[in-house]
């Protein structure tokens, strides 16, 4: 095909080994990944009923666009994003809306929230689709972001941050590196591993799109060394692409935490409280990248994902491609889980996941893993001993905190001190609890301390609001008093300085002043009583024209 003048395409050189940095701490728990990673992903059965929470992401819950009884098509938007930090929800299959009500959702709180229930009609019929395809390159980054937003794409690694916001660093920031997180450092989880092995080109296509949206210089695909097949597959997929590199990173939990990963790859630390964009880096999960590709090249919104179903209670652990909203019960059945022996059901990994209260909850966009642990195979609960100050927690902390000091202060309810020890830098990765020889539930103490501090802050804000209201009301009363006094003075000054009438005038002024004082005292008394009863201004404080002074509400 190529003429003799064309350069001969050489086989790709082995990539140079990039320099890596090391973050302090971390642990190496047993990974237990092969039980699910050796099996090819299968598509889960179409469930009869799907439960779609309106809040599956970080930010505001979506607003329903449908009502009970509506027929919907697969991929149809059924709830729209509500505000900047939000994401829409789409129907994962065709069917009928049978309920819009509160249902228990998979959330650490165990609470219920508004969900849309879709009863499948079994036809799985798509809405009309108009894929952008290669035209995306002609789109402005902002238009591209909008397509991604409308597709309901959020971070699939676990946090669920709306992806289009990540792809919008703002005009003042230059993004140098797009990091693709294929680390998957939590034990048991293998959905990203399987996705990289099975659909590497989807991921790479998604990355090309994301890189275009960010105008990033280079793209680094980070994969833990314990996934050689994924590394190989991704290396083959980036052949011939410039400024794309697959970087194997050491197997160490929590290597997959974005800030730790950025440190490993670039040596730079994202400032505390800051965003990775500030140092020119954006991190997206491999699943998110694949979802971007599906949205652009197939006009498919985020309605399904890879989920690992594994654990000691599961006889046939593997990955399933599941529709968002599928009840967990059906997935456990498909993987031959023994529900009668189910002790704990965890969404996410064993280090940072949370326990679900029931198997009837649905899969949501962030459900990367369902870990079903058999009651009969759980080790007995360990005895919690006092802290022996051994410092194992400190050596394990990837944030370089002093977990044992924070524990002592949280236990003593000295929350100010916990903040002095940078409590809010804690990522709750669980390394400290994992290594504690005394088996102290350290992370739980930090969550408790954070919760108490947040509550106290809300209380303080409320009190501050009340105080400013009170102060502005006092200021208004003072002002009115001063104005009245000025009016009286002006009136007095305007009176003729008749010598004969002077005595009477003076007397009248005195009477007037006494009456004013009396009225003021009464006003103040009323004001005091009113203020004690309710913070709204009393009727006597209304302006002469009947309108109320509005300064009370300006705070």
């Amino acid at each position, binding site marked *: 095909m190529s003429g003799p003048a064309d350069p001969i395409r050489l086989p790709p050189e082995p990539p140079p080994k990039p320099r890596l940095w090391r*973050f302090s701490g971390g*642990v190496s*728990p047993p990974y237990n990944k092969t039980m699910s990673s050796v099996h090819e992903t299968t598509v889960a059965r179409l469930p009869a009923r799907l439960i779609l929470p309106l809040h599956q992401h970080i930010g505001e819950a979506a607003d329903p666009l449908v009502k009970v009884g509506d027929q919907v098509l697969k991929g149809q938007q059924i709830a729209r994003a509500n505000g900047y930090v939000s994401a829409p929800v789409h129907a994962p299959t065709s069917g009928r809306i049978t309920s819009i009500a509160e249902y228990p959702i998979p959330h*650490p709180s*165990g609470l219920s929230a508004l969900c849309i229930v879709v009863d499948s009609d079994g036809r799985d019929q798509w809405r009309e689709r108009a894929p952008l395809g290669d035209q995306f390159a002609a789109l402005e980054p902002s238009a591209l972001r909008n397509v991604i937003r409308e597709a309901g794409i959020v971070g699939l690694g676990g946090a669920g941050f709306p992806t289009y916001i990540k792809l919008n660093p703002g005009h003042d920031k230059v993004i140098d590196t797009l990091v693709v997180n294929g680390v998957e450092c939590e034990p048991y989880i293998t959905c990203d591993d399987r996705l990289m092995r099975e659909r590497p080109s989807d991921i790479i296509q998604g990355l090309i799109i994301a890189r275009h949206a960010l105008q990033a210089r280079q793209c680094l695909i980070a994969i833990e060394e314990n996934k050689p097949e994924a590394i190989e597959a991704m290396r083959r997929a980036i052949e011939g692409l410039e400024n794309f590199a697959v970087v194997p990173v050491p197997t160490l939990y929590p290597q997959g935490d974005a*800030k730790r990963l950025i*440190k490993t790859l670039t040596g730079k*630390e994202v*400032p*505390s*409280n*800051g965003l990775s964009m500030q140092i020119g880096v954006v991190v997206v999960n491999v699943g998110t990248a694949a979802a971007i590709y599906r949205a652009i090249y197939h006009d498919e919104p985020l309605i399904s994902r890879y989920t690992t179903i594994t654990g000691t209670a599961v006889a046939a652990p593997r990955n399933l491609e599941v529709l968002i909203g599928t009840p967990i019960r059906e997935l456990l059945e498909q993987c031959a889980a023994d*529900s009668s022996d*189910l*002790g*704990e059901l*965890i969404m996410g990994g*064993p*280090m*940072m*996941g*949370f*326990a*679900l*209260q*029931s*198997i009837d909850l649905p899969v949501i966009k962030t459900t990367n893993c369902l*870990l079903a*642990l058999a009651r009969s195979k759980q080790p007995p609960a*360990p*005895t919690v*001993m*006092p*802290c*022996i*100050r*051994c*410092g*194992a927690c*400190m050596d394990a902390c*990837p*944030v*370089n*905190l*002093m977990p*044992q*000091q924070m524990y002592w202060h949280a236990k003593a309810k000295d929350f100010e001190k916990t903040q002095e*020890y*940078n409590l809010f*830098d804690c990522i*709750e990765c669980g390394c400290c*609890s*994992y*290594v504690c*020889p*005394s*088996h102290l*539930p350290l*992370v739980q103490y930090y*969550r408790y301390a954070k919760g108490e501090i947040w509550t106290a802050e809300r209380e303080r804000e409320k009190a501050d609001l009340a105080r400013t209201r009170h102060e502005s009301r006092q200021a208004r009363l003072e002002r009115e008093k001063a104005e009245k006094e000025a009016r009286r003075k002006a009136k007095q000054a305007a009176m003729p300085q008749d010598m004969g009438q002077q005595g009477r005038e003076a007397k009248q002024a005195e009477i007037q002043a006494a009456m004013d004082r009396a009225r003021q005292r009464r006003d103040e008394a009323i004001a005091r009583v009113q203020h004690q009863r309710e913070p709204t201004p009393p009727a006597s404080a209304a302006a002469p024209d009947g309108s109320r002074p509005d300064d009370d509400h300006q705070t």
Partner: protein
Amino acid sequence: MKLNTPTSPFIHAPITVTGVMMRVILALIPGVAAYVWFFGYGIAVNMVLAALTAVISEAVILRLRQRPLRPYLTDCSALLTALLLALAIPPIVPWWVPVIGTLFAIVIAKHLYGGLGYNPFNPAMIGYVVLLVSFPVEMTSWIPINTFSEHSLNLFESIRFSLFGQLPAGVTIDAITSATPLDTLKMHLAQGNTVSEIRAQLGLDEETSRLLSVIPIFGAIGGKGWEWVSGGFLIGGLWLLYLRIISWHIPVAMLGAMALLTGLFSLINPGHYAPPLFHLFSGAVMLGAFFIATDPVTAAASPRGRLVYGAGIGVLAFVIRAWGGYPDSIAFAVLLMNMLVPLIDQHLRPRVFGHDR
């Protein structure tokens, strides 16, 4: 069906307080074996007495404090305290010495401060110092190595002396006891001899020693016999480092500080100051560096804090040895640094990820 909802993490490393303490106890084996080999069974008798006292007193106190017995008795922390204390006591002492020391360590130094995890001072060292200031005669009657003792007590004789104060017929207590190498060095230095003279006179090979009827107190590196005991504790300590039961900071800082100071002073005035290796392999330095200073409860917490804490012990130990009234000094150095731990922990925190300082 409602499921259990504990909080993350849901898995745990296979490690317990008992596991930590038991490994430290196992790590004592090489040093203890050398001790028994060179100095007889007296130390073993003391260890058993201290261990029994520790377990019984711990149980009684736990009952009085209405704490559960099982988890705290099986955590082995009281046992470890007792064994470390016994290793600091001369091998030939009456039974009440290890018993009183252990009682003080467990009841006063540990439980009156709140029990496991709450004591600010190393209980074994408190017990040792109480014994040292209360019973100076018993606490400074050490013995030479077996082969040079007029009579080395066997196991039965050791027990009999400990419990009833009876020695075999014809053997006096003075005949079987002697000063430690550090004590001897200090004494002879005070008399104006130089380090090399003292070590040459009292460190002859066994045959010459016998001919001249002097007891060879000094070996190739430190005290005869003692250098092997120290070596045993060093091996046990390295095993603990390998297992990551202890971190390297405290032993390295402590031994480094001692080596640096002794090296510096022996360079300036070799006649008056013994060289670094002699110091490191004499007395309780190795035991102290790997087993006592590393007691997690009473040591500093952060890596930098551990370095300061360890170095502080090394410096104090050298200062007391060189210019203080006691020949050895690890216990005082450890207790003095225990006092500074809250201050060290307060000021030497690690730089938190993403923070400038």
